[in-house]
């Protein structure tokens, strides 16, 4: 069934968009990430203008993350103090990111920057996760207990001033570190339409050294707020949020997320991380190929409105 998108100004097949939301939602529920890193490239591939894809994907990530965040909050899996510091950073990051976004758009380089950012980030994170999960699976095969990650924050973090106590996370560190992590992810949210869970979770685990029990909940907490602010910024500054597109994605996304969460309970965490690593690497590789191959369209049109 074709539906006309009022902001994107084109008609799309509603069933395809709902199915896309369902698949992304399933994967995001399974792996505990927002799924924006899949939604944005897939929407652009479908023909949605990049600026609208990024903005509407951010809206979908809010919906995909909110029920997870609520569940974790009830179960005590959110370090609210840490989360608020990161949200604070995230707000600065989104504001700075939107300035950068418009500057790059004016230069005509926003598309290549989005693609390069995806390749670099997804490639790096994917490789790290692949190495870690393969190592863990091998250890388990050999009969050894799964190694507990060293709970120690990075030396760089230890050197920062104004230390504070974060009892839930079991940390006594400078709030500057989570603030900067939040800000960095905020920039990614506004430019790439991602929640940034795939960066946040490893950063919180390995950089900040947070207690594993509050990592996913706190990252979802930050993602809900920062993607909501990103939606507001996009809606206010460039009117690029297509509410019909977002609604279609949400319908599929939230259902898929619940199904994915069920499916995840049947798999071991190591295997889940391995599968996510392979998925992330596949997306990075696809985008890299897209950057390197001679494009089918050498020319592109930019109107004043877009």
């Amino acid at each position, binding site marked *: 069934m074709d539906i006309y998108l009022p902001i994107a100004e084109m008609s799309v097949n509603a069933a395809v968009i709902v199915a896309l939301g369902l698949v992304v939602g399933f994967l995001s529920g399974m792996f505990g990430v927002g799924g924006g890193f899949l939604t944005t490239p897939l929407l652009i591939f479908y023909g949605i203008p990049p600026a609208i894809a990024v903005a509407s994907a951010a809206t979908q990530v809010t919906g995909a993350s909110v029920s997870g965040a609520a569940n974790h909050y009830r179960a005590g899996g959110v370090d609210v103090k840490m989360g608020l510091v990161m949200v604070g950073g995230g707000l600065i990051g989104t504001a700075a990111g939107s300035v950068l976004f418009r500057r790059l758009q004016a230069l005509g380089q926003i598309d290549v920057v989005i693609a390069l950012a995806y390749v670099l980030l997804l490639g790096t994170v994917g490789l790290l996760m692949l190495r870690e999960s393969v190592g863990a699976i091998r250890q388990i095969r050999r009969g050894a207990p799964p190694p507990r990650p060293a709970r120690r924050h990075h030396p760089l973090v230890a050197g920062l001033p104004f230390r504070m106590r974060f009892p839930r996370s079991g940390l006594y560190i400078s709030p500057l570190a989570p603030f900067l992590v939040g800000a960095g992810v905020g920039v990614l949210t506004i430019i790439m339409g991602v929640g940034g869970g795939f960066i946040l979770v490893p950063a919180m685990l390995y950089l900040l050294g947070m207690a594993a029990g509050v990592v996913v909940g706190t990252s979802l907490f930050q993602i809900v707020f920062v993607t909501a602010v990103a939606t*507001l910024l996009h809606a206010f500054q460039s009117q690029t949020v297509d509410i019909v597109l977002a609604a279609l994605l949400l319908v599929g996304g939230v259902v898929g997320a619940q199904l994915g969460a069920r499916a995840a309970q049947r798999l071991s965490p190591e295997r889940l991380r391995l599968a996510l690593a392979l998925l992330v690497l596949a997306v990075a590789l696809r985008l890299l190929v897209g950057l390197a191959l001679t494009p089918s369209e050498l020319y592109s049109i930019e109107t004043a409105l877009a």
Partner: protein
Amino acid sequence: MSWLLALLLLLGALPARAAEPTLVADLSQSRIDISYRFAGEELLVFGAIQYPGGRLPAEAPGIAIVIRGPAEPLTVRQKGRVLGIWMNREAVRFESAPGFYAVATSAPISQLLDERNAAIYEIGLSFLQLSPATAVDPETSRRFQDGLLALRRRAGLFVEQPYGVRITADVLYRARIPIPSAVPVGDYRAEIYLIRDGRVRARATAPIIIDKTGFEREVWLFAHNSSIAYGLLAVGLAVGTGLVAGVGFGRRA
């Protein structure tokens, strides 16, 4: 003085006009509404040629029908390879490019009109005057213009139908112009030209309005007029959907 000039022109034109045929034109619809089910439309342009004294000419005339959308400035960018990566390098800005342009003719344009006349009336994609604003040599601006034409043709926004006009009994003409779903909204114009011996002998125009209607229009206006409320609504929708799904699935489990 200007009234005198006008009178002279009128006097000079009258005998010539009397000898020329005139055009009657109509459209299947003068307004195209974009609603949520809009997936493109087909516009029928039709009409009749009225010959002075009702005498048919020995040689059949040609008809060209142009549908022109609102013009806007745009930038065309060309990708080039930098360090193994394809990215935008050169750019040319055009001051006025129609968002939609379709031309249907009863015969290929080159058989109907010479280049000079085709350029005067902008009949044919290659005769569009896009007014390049970037200081580049004509060759480069031509190259970018060709790139623009190719992109818009593939998107169905620029259409050229060399035998798109059917003329019946040398009097009735009609053409079907496909309007794609990605068509820009705004004020359009249908121009119908009667061509003989390589020159335009008569013309008629008709306005067309393409606009969003109902829900689509309300959403667009809402997003642009009260963008903060719109953003809050989008966030509320996302949070609400997420929570409802969480609760719904939670209970069933």
